[in-house]
């Protein structure tokens, strides 16, 4: 009799596309293979659906059947390493960079990065938004004040129109022709716990990045104005405050 360890190793290889493991049988042994296929399908199908739920825009861009086949290749190369499936799939954007059949869609990896950031924002830790009074007090000492941002916030820059492509491929949207161009997006979770994606102007991108890197409010605003004379910190700060992504930190008075 083989050990349970050897049994599982053979079974795992079998469900990931390998041969029928030795020792698997059925009342009618001729049916062992077709019955084993149930496990193979469960594993590959359920993981494919989990990946699609993480990357719905990629699925829409390439189509369901293509996505399912691509997901199968991805699962075989990068099976989840933990039962927390919501944390799986970070390797999908780099996988798309090298997966030969999608090399004609160069924007795909960065659109996937945007979708992965959305999932991270959804599950990110909770944090208490700053009150308007506390924010006003901070703004009064802008040269020293550092704004702490909600753990869900990230900024993603791309040489492709990732925001526009993402937005026009939402369930109730219809894609229209688009001249590809660089775009930067912010991904965050608002007060209602909904994930938002913002298209950032050049100055806004510099400002948010500077805040995330821990620069003072003043330094961030100066850098943003240098990059984009039209940048208006008041407008963006009001939007950030409304979404609740400026949070209390130890340095908050």
């Amino acid at each position: 009799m083989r050990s349970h360890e050897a049994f599982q190793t053979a079974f795992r290889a079998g469900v990931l596309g390998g041969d029928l493991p030795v020792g698997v049988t059925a009342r009618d042994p001729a049916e062992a293979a077709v019955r084993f296929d149930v496990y193979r399908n469960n594993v590959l199908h359920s993981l494919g659906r989990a990946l699609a739920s993480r990357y719905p825009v990629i699925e829409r861009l390439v189509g369901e059947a293509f996505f399912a086949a691509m997901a199968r290749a991805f699962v075989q190369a990068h099976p989840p390493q933990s039962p927390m499936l919501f944390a799986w799939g970070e390797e999908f954007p780099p996988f798309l960079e090298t997966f030969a059949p999608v090399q004609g869609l160069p924007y795909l990896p960065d659109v996937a990065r945007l979708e992965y950031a959305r999932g991270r924002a959804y599950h990110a830790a909770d944090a208490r938004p700053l009150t308007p009074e506390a924010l006003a007090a901070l703004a009064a000492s802008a040269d020293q004040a550092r704004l702490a941002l909600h753990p869900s916030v990230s900024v993603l820059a791309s040489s492709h129109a990732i925001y526009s492509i993402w937005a026009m491929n939402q369930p109730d949207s219809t894609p229209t022709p688009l001249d590809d161009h660089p775009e930067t997006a912010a991904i965050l979770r608002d007060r209602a716990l909904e994930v938002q994606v913002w298209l950032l102007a050049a100055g806004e991108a510099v400002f948010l990045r500077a805040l995330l890197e821990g620069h003072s409010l003043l330094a961030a605003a100066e850098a943003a104005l240098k990059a984009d004379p039209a940048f208006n910190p008041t407008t963006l700060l009001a939007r950030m405050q409304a979404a609740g992504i400026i949070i209390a930190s130890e340095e908050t008075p």
Partner: protein
Amino acid sequence: MIQLPAAAGVGFKPEHFADIRAMSPDLGFFEIHAENYMGAGGAPHAMLEALRADYALSLHGVGLSIGGARGLDVDHLKRLRALVDRYQPESFSEHLAWASHGGDYLNDLLPLPYTPETLSLVCDHVDQVQEALGRRMLLENPATYVLFHDSTIPEAEFLREVVRRTGCGLLLDVNNVFVSTTNHRTDARRYLADFPLEAVGEIHLGGHAEEELPSGPLLIDNHGAEVAEPVWVLFEEVIARTGPLPSLIEWDNDVPAFPVLLADAVRAEEILRKGRVDAVA
């Protein structure tokens, strides 16, 4: 010991949250898949906190891989412990199955041969879970599609022995009994006659799909349909023997509108009510 109420419950789906808040349905409990609530924060925890305030809670794991040859994932056990501490569920259950091997998580409840070796492994793992969580757990009978040359112990006997050695309880999935016995051309009633019903702390009822093989039907436990009629009949027979038990309707794929799920729970509740009357009579 804290227990789920002996009433009908349903598996919680986030898409039903608004309906649940609006309807405040009269349900015995909600059950959640533990792994979906292991993120740091956000909507999943906000919904679960609100739900927990109003209902009894069953924490149901799908990723612990109790039937695996290698040791349990200690980090995963810690995450389970953190959920138990935070939400104080009335029950924790897992499966007689494996899902991880060599670091890979395969996202399915995979079967194991029933042998003295796997029996001792499963008992060690159940002991370890009960120790780590500081409570008795329930172990669920699986739905299976294949048999193994190496198996030497009938499933019901295997489960009875796990209960005897570890003191754990059992989660009797009546749909799994129907699916497995149909698939292996054996008798569900015979299986239930051998099953240690006295250890059952919860029942699962779910839907299955049916395919056709040369030798007859192959049922697939997909949790994607209403509970089938023969499963209702078996459930009623079990309740007639055990009296009312916490009984869950699980529907995880092609999730219907909440009232459809609730209708199955109402039907389960009627059978439980009959069990209560019979127990009094």
